[in-house]
């Protein structure tokens, strides 16, 4: 039993050890700062600068959050506060299904539906940050919605009744009482959404055009950390291959950071709960 439980620990240790050990040569030769902040990714000519990819990932994340986070939280508010019971029992599984659709299907949908729309609205190739952000926004929405909804539904009924009894409208009660009480859960949901957006590979790979350049226009190809790994893995060798492990190491540290932020929020919530 304990051995089975330890497998998870061994797995994580193995991944970290293996990725870091393989990435080490390129990190020491190029230098960590030069690796992350170098402005050119041209691996076949020995240029291993991640900044264009970091900028691409950041642009996608920003766009996805700007659209997906408010929509996700609002949908959660709708489900827990406004939605009739019977409709909610229909919508819940629908949102879960949205979370279960394989990312390659989102990518395919983006490729055939969203890219042409972006092309005709913004010009250019259509592949790029806007198409990627739109698809990612749809993909993080169910995560944000279901975790936020759980947090909102955990707020005691008395809080709402108290707000209403003081003469506040329903929206005032939701906005000033319910949402603040569920705040740490909502933050956690967005952190999880960030994790999903940063780590998403296939859907992004299929709609951003995959050119490792800084994002400049809505419909111009860019690249991201994850999709670049997927793309180069097929043929990379030597320093190029170790550089991909360097990207994987960076992604692992981002993941660790997000897990840390998530735990901090949960702990703070627990402390606040005791104080009440």
């Amino acid at each position, binding site marked *: 039993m304990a051995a089975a439980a330890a497998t998870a620990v061994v797995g994580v240790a193995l991944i970290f050890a293996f990725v870091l050990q393989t990435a080490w040569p390129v990190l020491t030769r190029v230098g960590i700062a030069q690796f992350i902040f170098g402005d050119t990714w041209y691996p076949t000519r020995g240029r291993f600068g991640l900044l264009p990819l970091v900028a691409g990932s950041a642009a996608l994340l920003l766009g996805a959050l700007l659209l997906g986070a408010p929509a996700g939280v609002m949908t959660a508010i709708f489900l827990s506060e406004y939605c009739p019971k019977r409709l909610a029992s229909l919508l819940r599984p629908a949102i879960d299904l949205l979370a279960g659709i394989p990312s390659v299907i989102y990518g395919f949908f983006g490729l055939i539906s969203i890219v042409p729309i972006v092309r005709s609205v913004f010009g250019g190739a259509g592949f790029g940050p806007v198409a990627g952000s739109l698809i990612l926004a749809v993909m993080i929405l169910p995560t944000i919605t279901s975790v936020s909804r759980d947090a909102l539904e955990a707020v005691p009924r008395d809080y709402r009744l108290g707000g209403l009894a003081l003469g506040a409208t329903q929206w005032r009660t939701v906005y000033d009482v319910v949402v603040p009480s569920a705040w740490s859960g909502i933050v956690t949901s967005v952190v999880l959404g960030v994790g999903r957006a940063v780590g998403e590979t296939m859907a992004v790979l299929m709609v951003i055009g995959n050119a490792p350049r800084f994002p400049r226009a809505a419909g111009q190809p860019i690249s991201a950390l994850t999709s670049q790994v997927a793309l180069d893995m097929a043929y990379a060798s030597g320093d190029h291959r170790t550089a991909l492990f360097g990207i*994987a190491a960076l992604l692992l540290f981002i993941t660790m950071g997000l897990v840390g932020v998530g735990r901090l929020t949960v702990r703070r919530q627990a402390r606040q709960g005791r104080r009440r």
Partner: protein
Amino acid sequence: MTRRVADWTARAAAWAVAGASIAVLLVIIGQIVIRGLPGFRLSFLVTAPHGIKMEGGVFPMIVASSFLTLLTLLIVGPVGIGAAVYLAEFAGDNRLTRLVRFAADTLAGVPSIVFGLFGLAFFVYFLQMGYSILAGALTLSMMVLPTMLRVSEEAIRAVPASYREGSLGLGATRWQTTLRVVLPAAMPAMATALILSVGRAFGETAAVLYTAGMTPSTPLLPLEGGRTLTVHLYLLATTGYIDPAYRVALVLLAVILSFNLLAGWLMARFRRRFVA
């Protein structure tokens, strides 16, 4: 009066945003069904692709996806349930359980492409498994272990304490109680955990692209490689075979939908037994 207007606006906005989220789901599913269903023959499921226009079906991919998913289930099932039993029944709160939880959280957040890169370097090259169903299944097992672990643990914890007390009171040992009383009671919810893990494994692309490989042959042994439905869809979509791609997407969607419905049905049964 303005507070009434604000209240009404907020209510309308909540309905509109939630409606838009559901509309996105309907558009994605609708488009795949409308474009995939006409021209869909049952022979698509039982023949191999051939010819320059990718005529024929996806039989080898269905075999590869099913084989991969089944093997993943066989690996991650015992490990995940064993770990969950340890965490929920035997361990309490000690250093190992805290470490396991942290590891599981981290593993849950690691991007799938990092698993893919790790699987390629570790299972395919280092352990010399080559592109194979086994290498893919081991990679997927690491990826879905956290889901398996968390849902199983919740299932075990949801079994009422009175069950355990009754069994222990009759003179059963703790191990007998776990095996004969707690686990059978937690079974439906545990099955849900398995189905959710299976759904993720079945729909995954990035982690299997370079571990199970892309050869469109029918794999019969764990050490043979194969191309999953998801990888097939990716290759078709990015090389311009849009019509067959729609059909593959339809098959994928149907499988994921039935997994979801099955999981929902089992969970509802479980809830009825314990909560109502």
